[in-house]
């Protein structure tokens, strides 16, 4: 694949208005869903108790629900978890006693119906932890964004930094919006995945930015839009290659990683797809919209270029 330096195969930037419109719609839907129906928070954030039990044969959810509802747990939410043998029971905040913990009471109730019920997992999160985690999680996302803003602003140029952060907010919002729209549980591992998505999407954005910066100096005569298009096209092979390998690995994780990290791999997979798209369109288009041109890079670059001509010797 021989590319003339001034040619490019795909006119990415020419279609940026369509992309921006698409992103705007996606973000609007995400925001709308977040406001209208919010997120289904896991017990990590809400507090409460979660009990996972294993049956030796496929479990009858109706019967379990009835048993629990009639015996002092009217708020119990019962569902299969992964296989038909495993059942997940969610409870709100209940009175807990030291002598007879909630989980033992539940297990006893269920064992009346089936002797072979086994306790697989119990999670209890107190109300004070939940609100704290929401706060800490939110802060972690904000600190990460600020840290990135500073680093990219320092290494590149502030318009790049704003472009990168715009892309990250775009990705985060759409991934979280997706969870809201489909009513998927948003728990601690999903939040971890969202933070990892920020890292990944940024990785992608930086690679594209790096080439844009290089080309702005090389191709002085070209208009900014062309420089961006050339850069994105040059990096296309890499972008596709890396995204596909990462996505493949995540698909493996989604299928074989087990129910516990389903949400996690789902968020990451979605994040990788959105992140790839956003580093092409949102990050570059934002930098362009902010009026990035070679004039902004030239003076800064002169000093930097000397240093970068001989990077670290490996």
């Amino acid at each position, binding site marked *: *694949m*021989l*590319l003339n330096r001034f040619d490019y195969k795909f006119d990415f930037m020419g279609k940026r208005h369509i992309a921006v419109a698409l992103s705007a719609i996606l973000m609007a839907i995400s925001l709308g869903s977040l406001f209208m129906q919010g997120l289904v928070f896991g017990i990590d954030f809400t507090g409460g108790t979660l009990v996972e039990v294993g049956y030796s044969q496929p479990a009858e959810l109706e019967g379990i629900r009835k048993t629990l509802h009639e015996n002092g747990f009217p708020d119990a939410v019962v569902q299969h978890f992964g296989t038909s043998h495993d059942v997940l029971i969610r409870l709100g*905040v209940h009175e807990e006693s*030291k*002598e007879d*913990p909630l*989980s*033992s009471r539940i297990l006893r109730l269920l064992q009346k119906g089936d002797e072979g019920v086994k*306790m*697989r*997992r*119990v*999670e*209890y*999160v*107190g*109300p*004070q*932890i939940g*609100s704290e985690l929401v706060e*800490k999680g939110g802060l*972690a996302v904000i*600190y990460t964004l600020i*840290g990135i803003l500073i*680093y990219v602003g320092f290494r590149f140029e502030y318009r790049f930094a704003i472009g990168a952060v715009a892309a990250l907010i775009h990705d985060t919002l759409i991934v979280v919006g997706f969870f809201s729209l489909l009513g998927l549980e948003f728990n*601690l*591992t999903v*939040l971890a995945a969202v*933070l*990892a998505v*920020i*890292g*990944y999407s*940024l*990785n992608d954005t*930086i*690679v594209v930015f790096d*080439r844009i910066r290089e080309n702005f100096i090389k191709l002085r005569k070209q208009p900014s839009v062309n420089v961006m298009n050339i850069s994105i096209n*040059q*990096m296309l*092979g*890499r972008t596709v*290659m*890396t995204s596909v*390998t*990462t996505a*493949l*690995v*995540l698909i*493996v*994780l989604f299928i*074989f*990683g*087990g129910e*516990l*990290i389903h949400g996690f791999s789902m968020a*990451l997979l979605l994040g990788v797809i959105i992140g790839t798209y956003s580093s092409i369109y949102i990050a570059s288009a934002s930098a362009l919209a902010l009026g990035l041109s070679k004039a902004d890079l030239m003076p800064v670059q002169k000093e930097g270029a000397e240093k970068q001509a001989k*990077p670290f010797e*490996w």
Partner: protein
Amino acid sequence: MNQYPLWKYLLIAAVIFVCTLYALPNIFGEDPAVQISPAYARDMKIDQAVQDTAVAELKNANISFIRVDRTENHLLLRFKDTDTQLNAYSVLKEALPKYVVAQNLAPATPDWLRALGGQPMYLGLDLRGGVHFLMQVDMETAIRQDEETYIGELRSLFREKKLRYKGINRVVAGGGGIQVSFANIDIGAQAKKLVEKQYDDLVITEINGVDEYRLHLTFTEKALKENRQNALEQNITTLRNRVNELGVSEPVIQRQGEERIVVQLPGVQDTARAKEILGATATLEFRLVAEDDDQLGARSYKRRDGTPVMLKRRVIATGDQIADAAATIDQRSGRPAAVVRLDNKGAKRMLMTTRKNVGKPMAVVFIEYHIETKMVDDKPVTTRAKTEEVINVATIQEEFGKNFQITGLTSSEANNLALLLRAGALKAPMEIIEERTIGPSLGQENIDLGLLSIMLGFVTVMLFMLMRYKTFGMVANFALLMNVVILVALLSLLQATLTLPGMAGIVLTLGMAVDANVLIFEKIREEIANGNSPQNSINVGYEKAFVTIFDANLTTLIAAVMLFGFGTGPIKGFAITLSLGIITSMFTAIMGTRGVINFFYGGKKLAKLPV
């Protein structure tokens, strides 16, 4: 061109060799084992005699073991399967009732590897099964108790110095503190001087009332901080002792922040028992029963059956003065009882009190704190309660000091009370604010799922790289394999906790680590397409790609570090593997692949490159 000096090849080879060595312990698995250790607060050693007893008992029961290891602190017996382990466990538990006997999984690392310091990765609870508790220490009660101690001290101080006070009590409302009232300003001023001299950790505020003079005493900021610190530390010590009593191998007890403690008990399934023991705030007090005329120095308590009884305000001895305790059966009545041995201070007071009060009744008060947080109108509200119960009143038959016996308990109460008294009282009550229990089968399942994902992810990436980059892809795959080996070696050496999300982190780094090679190889292709010579293309490819890789990885690292700072347990595991994976991939994907490529292609005349 493209030739590394010899030392670089040697360095790469050395890193690979050392890391393979330290990654090795992970493939040997674990032996089911039984661990025997001394119980807390008993003068017992693990010596040859204990080992001989254990071995002889196992021989008697016809149970064979693989190996026995003895250190000063424990004896470890390894068995070939879990059934044998279970049999041996019940045999040994019966044979050595005074020791803590626990089931355990011991790494089956060969001796020569262990001698080099090799050990397998530390698996998190989600992988090995067990309980995780996060406990919040109720600092308000800790401070309140300190204030009560001070009130006691101040009472005797004022009495000693003949300063008549009208009243002394804790201030319940507002910021707390102690309030002392005096009839006139003269006594008050004297008292103030005295307190100032004796206690530098109290802040004194004077309040001039209508017909009385009051002093309001509060702890200084420094004293409050120290008290909190002490409460946390004492609680951790007490928890350690209690966990030791439960017989758990490799427990984790750590402070988290200013007022929280994390307790992790691998392998424990009986959470009810663990909770009962860990969270129990029961303690004892010994008091004389008040005589009829002493209404001022007495307070009303309730017996177990609800009838009231007046006890003296002065305490003879408290639970923290108990040196040892054990459950037993009372010889005379045949009822369950607890034998108690007091420490020197407690014994002295007990002796003095009982000597003066032969023939009079004495009471044992059982005290327990309850604390609970509930959501009321979407706001967490904490309620605290203290229950005091007189478990028995007995007539002092003769004077006694160090050793005596408490009756009036049920059998399990006697057992738990003895354990609690032995392990020490908690300075302040605690509330379990987070609990995670993972069954052992789920743990193993998680390990299997994680391993399967890593393996499948690996094969997928390898095939993909091979298809696109041919021979160079093979080199990248080799580097990827090395990346995993180095990552595993680092995790083993650091003994960082590996969790299920941590395994997912390894899978994710597999995908992301090849990015560096993709960047390099694409750049090399580009250079060749631009008409550069193969050797030159390799060189330029590596050099140019480096800056990009560095920037990209560093920003990902920022996110991973933030994740580490914020996350708990499993999430931290993810952050660790992700950040370590990013760092190691920089080495393998850049220096590692360059080494291999230089070795095979460097300095040769090449017509084209297999990339």
